[in-house]
């Protein structure tokens, strides 16, 4: 119910029309002379979304960024989770602590810190130039690359933790059994380790993919004007254009798009339990 209430509220706004008022949208139900209120719903906001290619492009671009960054996070997160799970027991606690440590500072501050690192006269460029690898600064800030760096950095712990939980409890004798039966270590990884860590991979990917789809802070701060993400569009509609119904419609469609992976995620969790 707690979950549904804001959703219903947003749905209601998305069906209204924008007006200059407080709140800046028309009421859904109009109390006229009759006993029953008449419903004044309008699909105009939705139609508007499909008429302007900006929105569709933003959805597709968000999807692309979310997919690519989920894959990057998975590759990096898997290697980290695997190394931590394989580390001697006394080291694991410390290593895991290091993964969680960034959470001790605000998310916003951490993203701002990346500006300091990535900007033209930032730490990265200064370091690379001082050791002579490059002679003029790399342009990373305000590009898609900066967005990917920011997303992978911020969401890495969400990938590592479920993967670690899965890999850590894996029965080591299974790997020995595979070796014993003549399987080379690399092949064992693909035929035994990876299939058995699928629940962890799915959990990590959904935990990254779903919030990244709607991510707004990272593309806004690190990305350039060309970086199009639906979260950013939503923010603009809401605060700059003050078009609440369109902003709500954007959110509803985003939710509709995310319901599919959310349901897949829940199904995979149920399967993992049974």
């Amino acid at each position: 119910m707690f979950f549904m209430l804001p959703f219903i509220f947003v749905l209601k706004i998305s069906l209204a029309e924008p007006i200059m008022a407080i709140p800046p949208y028309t009421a859904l139900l109009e109390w006229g002379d009759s006993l029953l209120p008449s419903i004044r719903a309008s699909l105009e906001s939705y139609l508007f979304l499909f008429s302007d290619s900006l929105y569709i492009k933003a959805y597709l671009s968000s999807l692309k960024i979310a997919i690519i960054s989920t894959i990057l996070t998975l590759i990096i997160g898997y290697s980290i989770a695997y190394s931590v799970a394989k580390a001697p027991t006394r080291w694991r606690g410390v290593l895991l602590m290091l993964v969680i440590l960034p959470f001790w500072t605000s998310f916003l501050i951490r993203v701002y810190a990346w500006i300091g690192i990535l900007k033209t006269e930032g730490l990265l460029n200064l370091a690379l130039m001082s050791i002579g690898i490059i002679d003029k600064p790399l342009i990373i800030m305000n590009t898609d690359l900066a967005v990917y760096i920011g997303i992978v950095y911020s969401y890495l712990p969400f990938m590592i933790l479920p993967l670690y939980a899965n890999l850590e409890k894996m029965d080591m004798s299974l790997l020995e059994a595979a070796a014993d039966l003549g399987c080379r270590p690399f092949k064992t990884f693909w035929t035994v380790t990876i299939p058995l860590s699928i629940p962890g991979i799915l959990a990590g990917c959904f935990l990254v993919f779903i919030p990244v789809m709607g991510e707004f802070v990272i593309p806004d701060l690190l990305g350039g004007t060309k970086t199009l993400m639906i979260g950013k569009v939503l923010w603009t509609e809401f605060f700059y254009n003050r078009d609440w119904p369109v902003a709500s419609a954007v959110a509803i469609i985003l939710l509709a798009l995310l319901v599919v992976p959310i349901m897949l995620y829940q199904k995979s969790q149920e399967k993992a339990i049974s």
Partner: protein
Amino acid sequence: MSELHSVNPWLDPSQKPYIQIENVTKKFGDFTAIDNLNLDIYKNEFFSLLGPSGCGKTTLLRMLAGFEKVTNGRILLDGEDISEIPPHLRPINMMFQSYALFPHMTVEKNIAFGLKQDNLPPNEINQRVEEMLQLVELTDFAKRKPNQLSGGQSQRVALARSLAKRPKLLLLDEPLGALDKRLREQTQFELMDIQEKLEVTFVIVTHDQEEAMTVSSRIGVMDSGNLIQVATPTEIYEAPVNKDVADFIGDVNILRGIYKGQNDVGTQLHSDDSDSIVFATQEVGASTGDEMWFAIRPEKLEISKKKPTDQYNILNGRIEDIAYGGSFSTYHVRLDNGRILKAIRANRVRTEEHHLTWEDEVYLHWAPHSAVVLLS
């Protein structure tokens, strides 16, 4: 079984051992798990490594499989030094204590796993899997996942998987440990049949002495990283080399004695526990006054209320406890000095009058060849 074992290759010096463990030492940091161990195992043997937990038997098995590297010494299989060969290249397979079945694969796929690594043609793989399923009588379960199997079935899948590649040597780590007693006894015989049928050399690790006695051609008793005795089950039971082995295998009464010399009956001892002289037919090299021990198995002690006619090997005391075991009864007899000995008597007559009961004064007597004299 008997045919295989009546040929005792370890007694024939012309026989070449199949597995040679030469001066093998294994250290984990400062801890010595295996201490300069030598052992020869022959083809088609069913060899048991027996010992208390922490004695190094599992480490030795894992070195044979290749999961642990030898610190010193070498291991030869069929004349070839395998000490440096990684586990996936050794012609040895292992059946794990936990079975280690791949949970994401069906029974069939588990058994086929090793064969696929050898890139055998698919029809040959199928044929071999079929053979293995028949061998362990699990043909109807081919499509099941491991979590849909009972403990006994999992055990058989694990066995089938480890035998599918027709290894030169099969290692079994506590293979029956997770099964209940009845199933374990049944499976012991199945294991022996399979071993005989496939003519594979088995090395099994167990802490269950009964299991070792039942299945083995020979037993190696280990303690603190050393082999204490390597012999057939009968020898281990009837002629243990020291008190530890005697005590570890089966029930035993161990009494202390002082060497008095030899006479025509055998070794003569004096024991604080007995008023009479103690004779044992076994000859020992010792001098008068040496401390030694004699071990008598409970079933070799005769218990009766009448004083034996012989003048030697007599202990007397009171019955403190009787454990009725159906086919036999175990009597706990307290000697005058407080020591408690065990005697077992078969319950041969169904309507036997229980003429032995608690607090009865009884005599324990044994034949001179029934006790083993131990020097340490």
